[in-house]
């Protein structure tokens, strides 16, 4: 099964082309859904080499020369970390497509094709073993997302789309320079080879500059405070499927890059800048949470909650011990599921009422009890309630952080309190209290339908599965993390 990894890239790519060429919406919807489900099905094949993954090895390597003159190769492989991030991507994709199938009618073919292109690019980022290949996929994700926000977004979409692209491009321009410099230094673009040779050969100034170039690109993508202001704009303006993918997967490319590239390539610089990362992540945790508390728009509350939650992940990585880093990787998956689900829930509400302002809601638990029950579980998963997914990652990050700095763990733990505050406040404003608008009355506002339940229920099931049996993931993640850590 050497071809499984390229298959995961080609399947959505081919799907995108065919979907764009098809003439009517019915077949487009069916094909896009079929392709995304097939990609998910195929990606389950990643788990077949369970024992190799448990040993921390990279599996299913695929390597073909690309531009051999400069040492470029199409080199893909998956270890325990990539496997679960790819599975996260392929799992979320059918849900995003399902949402667009149901609610988008304007230029649907292009919309779905862009979503499938995103999938190829994101999967590519998590599988690439060649630095240029990684960079290409990393940057390529910008293009479909730019169009998704710019074409299918809300009122202020053009500003948001431009801000998203400019922020990210500027962030990663320096990374390109650093990649060239690394090639000059090591003579290769192969990620494993660089990780093996660069730390020993690079001088300390090179390490510092290289680390800062990579870290800046990833800090913008994550986003780490103070590089986060593109995120609320992008989220608020993006169409729901865009938000789901953005929060669900795209942000993880930043933390993944930090872990896969910046940490192993520049271990000394990483160690000396870890305190800075810790401080910024702590500010992000508290700041994101406090700002979330005051948002009037449901989507921007969820966006700022992401700033806070991604802060936890960066904290885990910066702390750099087995518990914190494994917890951070687990939390990448968890945040993808929980925040993806939150954006999905907000989207379902928006499609009913065409507003996202808290002031337009209240008392929904009476009129749409199934929706509110699932919303509550989703919010609690994001709050980090034990027995749901978010807790295990958050707790192990705090546990790991305590080993390095009890003070950092204590500051981060205030995020645990604030998360309960802003998310329950959001739930209070949406679901509890009296119904104040007649559009929200019982019988007027429709509860979730079967097709909508099929989008949210798989996510909710995963909250419980990961919350009660995190070893399903940890068996693969922990060994891979232990190999990456110095």
């Amino acid at each position, binding site marked *: 099964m050497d071809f499984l990894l390229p298959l995961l890239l080609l399947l959505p790519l081919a799907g995108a082309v065919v979907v764009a060429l098809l003439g009517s919406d019915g077949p487009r919807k069916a094909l896009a859904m079929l392709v995304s489900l097939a990609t998910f099905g195929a990606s389950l094949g990643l788990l077949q080499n369970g024992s190799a993954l448990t040993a921390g090895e990279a599996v299913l390597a695929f390597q073909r020369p690309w531009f051999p003159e400069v040492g470029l190769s199409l080199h893909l492989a998956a270890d325990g970390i990539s496997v679960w991030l790819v599975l996260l991507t392929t799992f979320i994709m059918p849900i995003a497509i399902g949402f667009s199938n149901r609610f988008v009618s304007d230029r649907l073919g292009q919309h779905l094709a862009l979503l499938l292109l995103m999938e190829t690019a994101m999967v590519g980022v998590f599988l690439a073993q060649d630095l240029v290949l990684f960079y290409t996929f990393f940057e390529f994700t910008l293009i479909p997302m730019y169009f998704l926000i710019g074409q299918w977004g809300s009122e202020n979409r053009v500003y948001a789309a431009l*801000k998203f692209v*400019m922020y990210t491009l500027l962030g990663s*321009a*320096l990374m*390109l*320079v650093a990649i*060239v*410099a690394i090639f000059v*230094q090591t003579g290769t673009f192969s990620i494993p080879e660089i990780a093996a040779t660069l730390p020993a050969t*690079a*001088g300390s100034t*090179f390490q510092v*500059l*290289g680390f800062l170039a990579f870290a800046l690109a990833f800090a913008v993508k994550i986003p780490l405070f103070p590089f*986060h*202001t593109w995120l*609320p704009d992008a989220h608020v303006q993006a169409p729901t499927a865009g938000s789901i993918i953005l929060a669900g997967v795209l942000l993880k490319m930043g933390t993944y890059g930090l872990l896969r590239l910046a940490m192993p390539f520049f271990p000394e610089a990483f160690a000396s800048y870890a305190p800075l990362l810790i401080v910024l992540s702590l500010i992000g945790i508290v*700041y994101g949470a*406090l*700002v979330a*508390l*005051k*948002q009037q728009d449901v989507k921007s509350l969820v966006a700022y909650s992401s700033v806070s939650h991604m802060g936890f992940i960066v904290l885990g990585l910066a702390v750099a011990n*087995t*518990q914190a880093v*494994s*917890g951070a990787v687990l939390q990448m998956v968890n945040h993808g599921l929980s925040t993806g689900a939150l954006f999905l829930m907000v989207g379902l509400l928006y499609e009913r009422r065409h507003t996202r302002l808290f002031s337009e809601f209240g*008392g929904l*638990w009476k009129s749409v009890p199934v929706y509110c029950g699932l919303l509550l579980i989703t919010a609690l998963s994001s709050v980090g*309630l*034990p*027995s749901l997914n978010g807790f*295990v990652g958050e*707790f*192990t990050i*705090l*546990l790991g*952080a*305590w*080993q390095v700095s*009890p003070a950092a*763990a*204590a500051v981060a*733990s*205030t995020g*645990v*309190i604030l998360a*309960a505050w802003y998310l*329950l406040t959001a739930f*209070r404003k949406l*679901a*509890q*209290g009296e*119904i104040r608008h007649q559009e929200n009355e019982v019988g007027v506002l429709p509860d979730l339908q079967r097709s909508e339940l099929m989008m949210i229920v798989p996510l909710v099931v995963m909250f419980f599965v990961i919350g*009660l*049996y*995190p*070893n399903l993931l*940890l068996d693969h993640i*922990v060994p891979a993390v232990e190999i990456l850590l110095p």
Partner: protein
Amino acid sequence: MISLAWLLLLLPLAGMLINLVLGRVIGRRATAVVASGTVGGAFLLALSMAPAVFGSHDHHGATIHLWNWIDMGSLHVPMALLVDPLSLTMVLVVTGVGFLIHVYAIGYMEGDERFNRFFLYLNLFILAMLLLVLGDSFLTLFIGWEGVGLASFLLIGFWFDREDDLYGSFADCGKKAFIVNRIGDVGMILAMALIWSIVGSLEFNEVFHALEAGITIPATAVCLLLLLAVAGKSAQFPLYVWLPDAMAGPTPVSALIHAATMVTAGIYLMARTHAFWELSATASTTAAWVGVGTAFVAGTMALVQHDLKKVLAYSTVSQLGYMVLGAATGAFALAIFHLVTHAFFKALLFLSAGSVQHATHELDMRKLGGLQQKMPGTARCFLIGVLALAGIPIFSGFFSKDAILLSAFGKSPLLYAVGLITALITSVYAFRAWWLTFNGTPRDQEIHSHVHESGALMMVPLWILAGLAFVGGGLNLPVALTLERALEGVLGHHTPPPLQLEISLLAVSAVVAVTGWWLIRSTYHHAGWIDSVKATMKPLTKTARNRWYLDTLYDDGLVPTLHAASQWFTNVVDRILIDGIVNGSAQLAMNISRQARRVNNGQVPTYALSLFVGATVLVVVFWLAV
């Protein structure tokens, strides 16, 4: 039998799932039967385990491994249950009192539109509470610990669309409870991080074994973090503020969760971690003062309430203070003893109050009075509860509270003195509530004319609890010390004080309790001297009415500050500062590119050129750096 302990959890879980999936189909009666039946079943199961568990001499108890929960390098946390005399005592209280309250609730909640959902939440609560007391590690305990917080949030805000003058929005009360509890939970999380960093395990037996083996650990820090957790869950200073608001929930919830079981989780935690507390005199002394201080402050607030449930709520805070005092002075078994008797008499008091509310739709005692003629059964039950709470001899509270005062006396006469004054206050507010509600003449004829006694579904649980509140002291009579001996394996041996001292202090307590009754009797028989007593108490009354200004500090100080910070971050830091820099540099780039466009006739080449130039410069920089 013990190996079937997982069934204890499966029963309420099954009840919950059945009612979630089939609730609408099977109807209300079946819902009620399923919900209470599963809890009753769990009680019988626990009862059948009792002989083996209490008879066992293995003080490690029995561990039932379910599955490996978290394995991460050197961190291993199994999902496992620990059945020992301590956890089983708690299980018996939770399922026993829980079952009675389930049955009562069938009558009480009759006619509520969300009847099915109510029982769903109650089963969720039982499930979480059982996991809390049965978890074999700090982390499995913590699942239940936060789980009961969730159940509490759901049940306080059960009528999420209601609001009134006393509570404001009920939904906000639920939210407040969850958030304040979370502050305590952070203490627990950090305590776990600290313990794990030194012991390398979170399982109780392994941690306590390491302590016995003499591992060096900052026990004071661990205990102070745990004390924060205790203060959150068991409503101690400065985190008790959520509990009085929790009374917005339906009364069976107040009885079960906010009096008999959930709020005692902190006491259970202290007992479970007694090995840490025994290592730190500093933390124990702090906890003792927090406990007795809370008992006193809450007692004074109970004195000045007009709402019957609020009296009982502050009384619960106060009684929990006694339990913390007991545990903090080393009498862990006695804290558990008072926990058990309190579960009986406080559940009884709440359910009697619920019976009043069911009949009158009113709990403002200024509008009640004289109810004993129309509700003789409820009145007798309430009176038994009052006698037990006030500590009148022979009733259960007399023995358990006095045992704690005795233990406090052993530590410090000052602690004892404050505890004794609080005992007087307790007796006064308990009899005051009785007098205002059931004695004298009705103050509102309109209400009084509709009053009727509650039905059998509500009265039978009341009578059973009344019986337990009466004889519950028998669990641990002086000299016999049955419960203390049963828990000795887990909690260690606690030397009883000299008998003479015990008898003298018992006598003092008895006098104090009766004095309370006499003060109230004099008040309501208009003895002239009582007014001068009241006058001297005026400043204290005023402070108590203002809830010792703690709520003011939070509501007008802390919360608005956080909101202001949030607003400032949003408007100033995010929108003006950071975005200002971002938009400003974008503007700058645009201007530069506009200049460049004149030269190059188009944007793309400019972009490519500048990228190329920039990249070259940087590559040179890197190259030089190598």
